[in-house]
Structures are given as structure tokens and as C-alpha cells.
């Protein structure tokens, strides 16, 4: 994993509305964005960043690239990720919302075969406060410190970041794993990474209803984690079976074969309880639980 100022960052879909909006923001934060890729715009520049028609042309000119941030429209995401993998980029941050899940399945098969880390889709990306912004996080909400934040949400992650910052608790890294049902990286994978990360002393896990990401994370924490974890679950009162914008958050036993009650708030709260992980009642309670965890650690 290399998410530092000493890495090289590419933006695919740099001239798309979202790309054009967030590239200057990332640059202003100090993110080393070295190039953009937008077919048809090769040879031009955006905010002083050279644009290329192909990812491989950017790599040829600038040398190996560590991370690509993808802003292309949903149906072009599969192709964009395959192109990045073919150019040997091993960290992909997939911001775009609305990727058909079968495309995600296909791109993840390729990512697994090439040991490529995919964050997302449907994510605000990653911020390492004081160092790099790789996505859409509002930089002023965050400040450097010892708390690692992992979340399935976008704006709720901003909320939690702000609560921590206001309480004087800075963050080592904030990762949006994405709001979709099929995701490139899981809570468990990131817990493993943060357990090894020297800058992280305590982890906040912001979960929500749907899927079994939280249940698996809780098991993993109990078995393998030394660092303290504080959790929050959104959607305890969400109407059942109602689409809530996050495809992953639909609670309905749609697939009869895959567990009956996995995915409900009750199942997740029970899993955290079994793993002895404190769960905040509300976002504003998270700082207090984090402080307690730090004091005990």
C-alpha cells in the first residue's frame, strides 16, 4: 500500500464533470496528481496536468504510476479498470456510483489475478489528512491524528470525520470502502492494513445495514486485532426492503439461500456485542468512545 505524497497519482475521466471538479481540489491538498486520461484530449492540459488518450501513454511518459482514481461514467468503469491494470497500476480508487455489479465482478476477477487493490465502487475514496486526498472528501473536515476511519458511506463519513476533528481527535487515514453490494475491498482487508499501520492507534468502523461486511469484520476483530475498534451502524430504523441509494443497504431476504437474517441492524449489533466492540448510538457519541478506547489502550 502506498498512499503518500511520494506516490504518483493518475486520474481517469479527468475531464468528466466530477473529475474536473475534484482534480483541482486534490491538487490543492498536495496530492501528487501527475496526469489525467481522457480519450480525445491527449496533448492538452487540465489545471496544469497533462492529459493523455491512453493510460499506457501516461505511464510511458511519466514512469510507473501507483494509484489511479476513476471518475468515468458507470458503463465505462470496467474498461477503465482493465486499462489501468494492463498498464500495471496496482491501486485503483473507483469513485463512480452506479456501476452494474456484473461489471464489478468481472473487474475484480482481473484485480485479484494481478494483486490489484480496488477501493469502491461508489465511494468518496481515501484521505490521509495532512498528506493526500484521493477522492471527494472535504479536506477541512479532517486533521492528522491517530484514528483510522473505515466506512461504507460518503457524506456520513464526512460527518464522522468532522465530529472527530471537532473533538480534537485527528485521523491517520479515512477510507470509504463503498456503498455497493459488490466491493473491491472489505472492512476486513482494511482492518488488517490498519493493524499494521504505525500511525493508527484506534479504528472507527462506520457500517450500515445490508450485506455481511460488518459481521465478518466483527469476527475478524475478535480473532485477530490488537488495536481497539469503535463501531457505528446506520439504518437501524430504515424501512425494510426500501432502496436507500446504497445498493448494499437494501435489507430484504431477496436471496433465500444466503442467510435469513444477515444484514439487519440487529444481526450487526449482535455481532459487535459478541466481539465486545463498543457501538456508538449516534455519530456525536463516537469521539467519546474513541477517547475511552485510547485511554484504555
Amino acid at each position, binding site marked *: 500500500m502506498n498512499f503518500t505524497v511520494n506516490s504518483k497519482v493518475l486520474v481517469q475521466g479527468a475531464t468528466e*464533470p*466530477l473529475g474536473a*471538479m475534484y482534480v483541482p481540489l486534490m491538487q490543492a491538498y498536495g496530492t501528487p496528481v501527475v496526469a489525467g486520461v481522457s480519450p480525445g484530449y491527449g496533448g492538452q492540459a487540465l489545471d496544469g496536468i497533462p492529459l493523455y488518450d491512453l493510460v499506457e501513454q501516461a505511464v510511458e511518459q511519466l514512469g510507473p504510476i501507483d494509484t489511479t482514481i476513476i471518475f468515468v461514467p*458507470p*458503463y465505462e468503469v470496467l474498461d477503465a479498470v482493465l486499462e489501468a491494470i494492463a498498464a500495471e497500476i496496482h491501486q485503483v480508487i473507483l*469513485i*463512480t*456510483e*452506479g*456501476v*452494474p*455489479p*456484473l461489471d*464489478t*465482478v468481472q473487474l475484480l*476477477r482481473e484485480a485479484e489475478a494481478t494483486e490489484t487493490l480496488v477501493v469502491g465502487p461508489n*465511494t468518496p475514496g481515501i484521505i490521509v489528512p495532512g498528506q493526500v486526498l484521493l477522492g*471527494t472528501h*472535504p479536506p*477541512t473536515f479532517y486533521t492528522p491524528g491517530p484514528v483510522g476511519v473505515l*466506512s*461504507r*458511506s*460518503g*457524506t*456520513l463519513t*464526512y*460527518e464522522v470525520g468532522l465530529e472527530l476533528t471537532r473533538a480534537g481527535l485527528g485521523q491517520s487515514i479515512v477510507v470509504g470502502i463503498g*456503498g455497493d453490494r*459488490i*466491493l473491491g475491498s472489505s472492512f476486513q482487508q482494511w482492518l488488517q492494513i490498519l493493524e499494521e499501520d504505525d500511525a493508527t492507534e484506534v479504528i472507527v468502523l*462506520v457500517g*450500515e*445495514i445490508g*450485506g*455481511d*461486511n460488518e459481521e*465478518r469484520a466483527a469476527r475478524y476483530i475478535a480473532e485477530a486485532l490488537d488495536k481497539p475498534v469503535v463501531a457505528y451502524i*446506520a*439504518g*437501524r*430504523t*430504515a*424501512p425494510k426492503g426500501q*432502496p*436507500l*441509494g*446504497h*445498493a448494499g*443497504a437494501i435489507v430484504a*431476504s*431477496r*436471496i*433465500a*439461500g*444466503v442467510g*435469513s437474517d444477515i444484514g439487519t441492524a440487529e444481526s450487526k449489533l449482535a455481532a459487535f456485542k459478541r466481539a465486545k466492540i463498543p457501538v456508538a448510538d*449516534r*455519530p*456525536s457519541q463516537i469521539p467519546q468512545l474513541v477517547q475511552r478506547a485510547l485511554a484504555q489502550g
Partner: protein
Amino acid sequence: MDLLEYQAKELFHQMGIPVLPSQRIHHPTDLKGLRVPFPVVLKSQVYTGARGKMGGIKFVENTIDAIAAAQAIFHLPILGKYPKVLLAEAKYNPDREFYLAVALDGSTRRPVLLGSQQGGVDIESKLDQIQQVVVEQEFSSFYARRLAIKMGLKGSLICSVSSIVEKMYRLLVARDLDLVEINPLAVSSSGELMALDGKVTVNDAALGRQSDLATLVASIPTAPPAACGLSLVPLQGTIGVLCSGAGLTMATLDLIAKSKGKAANFVDLGGDYRHCCPPAILQDRIRQGLDLITQDKSVKAVLVNIVSNGVSCLQVAEAIASFLKWEAAHRHLPPLVVRLVGEQFHSARGLLAAINVPVFESLDESISHTVSLTTATPALPREKPKTPLVLASA
């Protein structure tokens, strides 16, 4: 979103999955022109399972009985929903009933094939008997045969069942589906297979490249709005909620419930990275969202909670102010409470304070204030009135 049974079976038929001869019935008198020979089964076309147990499926032997049965089914709500169409289908006498499904699994991040020899109505109670095969790599027929073997099938059923599983998988991929389910798959004494019921869940995100499915779904009354339209989710309380992003919306609804408030409805404007609605059009969406929320007369107060990196607090405040300016001129609006964080907060608060809209920076405070507005006077009746309710102050 789920297709109706008859729509699912049309897709099965196109794929070569065996289905019975059938006919759609839009009105009981359509049964006079029935081309399917008796005995037939009439089935309510609604989106919920368990319709059989609730009387939504009837067997009939002749036209007179069929018309009477159809009338009864048309007037029978299944979990509150009346069918617009019935399906009349040839009656079939299975020897055994299997369960088959192909779905996308978030844990393995792969499609999974599911199957059991114990299919039928009580499938939920036999979940532990359902066998699973994860399609790890590019699909090939052996994955389907592996499922058939795990299901305990022998002899010719191995190939006949796995061929249906393969067709289900191909259908899932070709049409970008989330789920294809056959329950039950009837097995006759001679080993013939027949899909007696079918469920297909289409993926909303993929509808933009599945034009004929999009047409099917558009005919469904509960269909979600086109990719970037706003949708209002109705609930049972008195607080309207306009929020940005799914996670924050859920958290806001949870906090309202925790403060003993009740949400009447909510609109989620979406997060910061939705391609079809970049932050540039968020101001328009705020106005549209407020319009949707305040059309509901049971709303006694509206909470606006916008957290975004795409627009500033001032831009949000301007959108709210312009909505109030135009709307308040010709209709009564419930009081608004606004919660904002980020850039230009103080100018936003100033702008809204001038028109008596309180702005909070703390989420908890905005919620307790909103709840206090709805609990100060006696609550409205739980049942939503059919005609617009005229508030005393209007």
C-alpha cells in the same frame, strides 16, 4: 427491482427454459377467450412471495368458476397490493419440486448458483438444505453440473437440471440481473422439468443499457424514477427529511426515531459522486426535493440536512430561500429546520435567519429542535387523510 412472474417467464421462454402455456388476464371476462385448456391455475401478479398462502392462487376447471375466481383474486390485496394482471396457466402435476437460483453474492464477490431438491412454498424453512456453488472464474457448464451433484442428483437429472441452471446463469449475465430464481422447478415422474414460478430481479444501475427491460420496468407502478430523478419514500410520521447521501439519510432517520420523532417521508439527494447529477445541479434538486416533501400534508416540520463537498452552505441556503420565496406565496408550508456544515456556514445562517429559518451546525440539536416542533401540538391522526388537510394556521 423485481419483475412480475409473467415477465420473468417471458425471459425464461426466450432463453429456452421450459414454461407452461399461459395467458395474461387483465379482466375476468378475458377468460371467455382463454386459449389455455382447462384445468388451469389463476395466479395474482404481485411482487410479493407467499401469495399462494394468502389466496392469490386458485385452480379452476371451467369458465364460470374461472371468472368467479378471477374476480376474487382481482379484489384480494396481497400485503396491501392489488394485482393489475392475473396469469392463467395450464395446471401441472409435479412429482417433485426443486429450488434453483443464480444470484450475486457480496461476500465472495462472485455469482453463486443455488439449488435444493426440497423446493416449493416452505423454502425459507429449508435454507440449510440449499447447496451453493461459487462461480469463481469465467462461467463454464461444469459449475452447473457441480451444483447438480451437490444437490444429490443422479443419472439423467444431472444434465437436465444443470442445463437449466446454465440457462439461468446466461440470462443473468445477458440481462444484467441481480437474481434469477425458479421455485418450484417441477420434476414430473418421467423426469420432465418445468419452471412453475419464476422470480427475476433486475439491476437498476444497468437499466440504461438494457432498453427492453427498462420498458418492462417502466410499466411497473412502483418502479424507481430514472437514474437521477428524485424519489420520495413515504413513511408514517410528521417530519419530512431532505438529506444528502444514503448513509447520512439513514443516520438522520435513526436519530429522529431516537428522539421520539416520526419521519413522514424522506428524499435522499444522493452523495457527491453520482455521475448523472453532479453537485452543479444540487441547488435544483434541493428545490425539487422540498417540493416533493411538502406536498405531503401530514408533514408538520421539515428537516434539511445537507453535508456535501460539492456545494457550499451558502449555495444550499440560497436554494432553500428561493424555494420558500416562490412557494410560500401561494401555499402554506410547514416550518423548516436546516442543518449545515462546511464552507460559508455563517453567511448561510445569516441568509436563512433573515427569513426565520433556524440553521444548526450540530446534527443532534437540529433534530431535537425539529422533533420539538412536531410534538408541541397534538399529533395529527396516524392515518393519512385522503383529501388535503387544511392546517389551522393556513
